[in-house]
């Protein structure tokens, strides 16, 4: 039996009660599924946020292998008032990774619940457990020669659809708005009940993965980015694999081109000529993902000067902005749409179109092409080597898909980042009518002064964007309370009322998205 070698306790829980709870977890799950030794828990503490590790250190981690065990865990947590932070694959890099939101919470790790329960190649639907990774799904689809294509976030191989969708992550294909493609959840509620959304509550029904709405209130969205239930199964739609996929890149020379790029893309995107979640990536993002490090060009502290960025752009044959889009369909369909894109580009009068024939086999084109055609890869981890030192926070404000908005956001973000001695490492992901402006605030965690700057920078980004009516759609766990404030008191009161009704003991991930019954709401 592994003895506890750490002194971390859940907030407000006496050591004797915690020990009793651990003993019950052992009886329920088996010794091998109870991690209390610091050596076992260290991998759960690898965070990229600026606060000290101790803020997000778990008291224990437990792994469940069945829905019944999840129900049992919830029952024990209620009995001893132990807060539980649930992860699926735990690879939410830059948003908190696998660490709990608050010190002392136990982690419920669902990595061992990793069954692909069903894939229907005719209907293009899937039903999976929390631990299923995109790589696992990809392998299954390939091995069974299924005519389907995946959509995933950038850490695709090791992340999974359930966790990404529940956190409202996005991908790069026509199915890139993952929550939109979600169809049916199974959740273990705080009282141990099992709740299925949509058609899932009807005994014998087989439409759970094809009809989202069911009858009466549709509550699926309420459980995303939330702490009202533990998702143990997720249904979602898969795109039929098109006969032809044509990834494209369009390089733009100047950073001031961003407004015109968006005006060029939006009509094509809304009309579905370009059906995928188009990316407009800045020069550092693209340089870093093709293995360029800042130290290759300068070791001076602070923001990387513009003249160096221009040099990198030239050396690596990148644009100041690099647009990635993909056309799908039959050869005829793709050719028609390609001609429309070419026509629009000609009208724009700038931008260099690059096809796979020209850029295939080179990075970053290859990994972008893979993301847009459903092939998992890990190339984007190169971002972490740009500046190095292990600090990364995603700042992800949303805006309308308008050139003027993106221009404004880009200028503001770059000014604030540079003022704090950090780089603008960003991309815009074009939704149907929105833009996810995703900026990786990269900094060196080994440098206390830089950590403090990164934290101040992130706060200023939130503050200044909010003053102009912008807010982020997702944030790391050290800033979740701050971001919740951006969305207003009424919303928070409603969220806390739901929390009180569904989880009166406040055991499920208190603090997630700023929802915690210890808050004064």
């Amino acid at each position, binding site marked *: 039996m592994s003895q506890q070698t750490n002194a971390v306790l859940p907030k407000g829980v006496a050591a004797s009660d915690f020990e009793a709870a651990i003993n019950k977890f052992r009886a329920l799950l088996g010794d091998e599924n109870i*991690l209390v030794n610091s050596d076992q828990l260290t991998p759960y*503490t690898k965070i990229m946020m600026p606060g*000290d*590790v101790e803020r997000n250190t778990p008291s224990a981690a437990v792994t469940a292998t069945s829905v019944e065990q999840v129900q049992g865990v919830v029952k024990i947590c209620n009995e001893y008032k132990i807060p539980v932070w649930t992860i699926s694959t735990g690879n939410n890099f830059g948003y908190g990774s696998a660490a709990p939101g608050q010190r002392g919470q136990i982690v419920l790790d669902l990595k061992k619940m990793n069954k692909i329960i069903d894939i229907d190649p005719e209907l293009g639907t899937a039903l999976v457990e929390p631990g299923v990774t995109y790589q696992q799904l990809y392998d299954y689809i390939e091995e069974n020669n299924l005519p389907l294509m995946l959509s995933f976030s950038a850490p695709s191989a*090791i992340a999974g659809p359930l966790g990404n969708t529940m956190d409202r992550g996005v991908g790069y294909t026509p199915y890139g708005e993952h929550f939109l493609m979600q169809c049916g959840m199974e959740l273990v509620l705080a009282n141990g009940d099992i709740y299925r959304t949509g058609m899932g509550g009807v005994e014998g029904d087989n439409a759970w993965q094809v009809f989202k709405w069911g009858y009466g209130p549709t509550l699926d969205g309420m459980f995303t980015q939330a702490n009202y239930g533990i998702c143990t199964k997720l249904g979602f739609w898969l795109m039929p694999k098109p006969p032809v996929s044509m990834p494209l890149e369009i390089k733009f020379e100047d950073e001031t081109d961003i407004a015109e790029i968006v005006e060029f893309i939006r009509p094509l995107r809304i009309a579905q000529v370009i059906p995928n979640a188009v990316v407009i990536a800045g020069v550092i993002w693209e340089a870093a993902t093709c293995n360029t490090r800042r130290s290759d060009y300068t070791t001076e502290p602070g923001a990387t000067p513009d003249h160096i960025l221009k040099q990198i752009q030239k050396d690596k044959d990148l644009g100041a902005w690099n647009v990635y889009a993909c056309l799908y369909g039959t050869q005829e369909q793709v050719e028609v749409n390609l001609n429309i894109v070419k026509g629009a580009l000609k009208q724009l009068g700038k931008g260099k179109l690059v096809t796979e024939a020209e850029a295939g086999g080179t990075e970053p084109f290859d990994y972008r092409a893979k993301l847009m055609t459903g092939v998992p890869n890990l190339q984007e981890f190169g971002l972490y080597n740009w500046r190095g030192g*292990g600090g990364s926070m995603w700042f992800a404000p949303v805006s309308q898909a308008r050139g003027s908005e993106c221009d404004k956001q880009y200028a503001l973000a770059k000014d604030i980042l540079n003022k704090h001695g950090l780089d603008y490492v960003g991309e815009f992901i074009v939704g149907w009518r929105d833009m996810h402006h995703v900026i990786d605030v990269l900094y060196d965690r080994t440098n206390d002064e830089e950590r403090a700057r990164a934290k101040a920078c992130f706060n200023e980004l939130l503050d200044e964007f909010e003053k102009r009516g912008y807010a982020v759609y997702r944030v790391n766990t050290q800033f979740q309370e701050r971001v919740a404030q951006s969305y207003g008191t009424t919303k928070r009161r409603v969220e806390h009322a739901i929390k009180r009704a569904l989880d009166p003991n406040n055991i499920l991930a208190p603090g997630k998205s700023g929802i915690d019954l210890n808050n004064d709401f």
Partner: protein
Amino acid sequence: MNPKRRSFLKGALATGAAGSAMLGSAGLAQAAMQMKTNSMPTLILASDAAVEASFAAGVKAALSGSTEVTLLRTDRISPLTTVQKALQSKRPMRLVGMVDDATGELLTAMARSAGARMTWLGQHAADASQTRHQVISGQTAMGSALALGEQLQQDAAGFRFKAEQPFANKTALELSAARSGTTSCHWAAHLGHALMQPNAPVDAAYLPAQSKRLEGRFVSFVIEV
């Protein structure tokens, strides 16, 4: 124990940070565990030639001749498949490495996913005249943390060292010195050695030349399967 080390430990203990990891029963338990683990097959991961010549050399110097040791250079071969195989095998094994940040993130995630024990996790920065080190120090790693801190005290370059003890109700052990000397790669060799044998001095014959530089950002780790 040599006088320098005794003095260093005394200073560390005075901060209330080091606790009894080295000198108490836990220290003895750690020593016993090291005797056991030092015979485990060991996979060393090094991010490039400079890390191989320093960190990996230190690791090798600490291992007995009979230990099965394999070196993998991550700038030549992606380590993911090899590490995945090692983590999934039932065979007891130790993975010790110093790699870049991207690889460090991935390997930590893989260790967690496999349920492996991570007895050491460190983040390091080495610039021209300063090195910085942040380690997560559990009970079994405190000896290695102290050994690294001790070595840094002897270096010509300035340094900042912080050993967080998130699993203990203790403040982090923090050490620093502002010096104008040039950084060398010796800290990495000593770190490699300290991760295997925190209580023994490194054999100078294994150290790279003092003039060798090692600059960059690194993640160090010890994973036990």
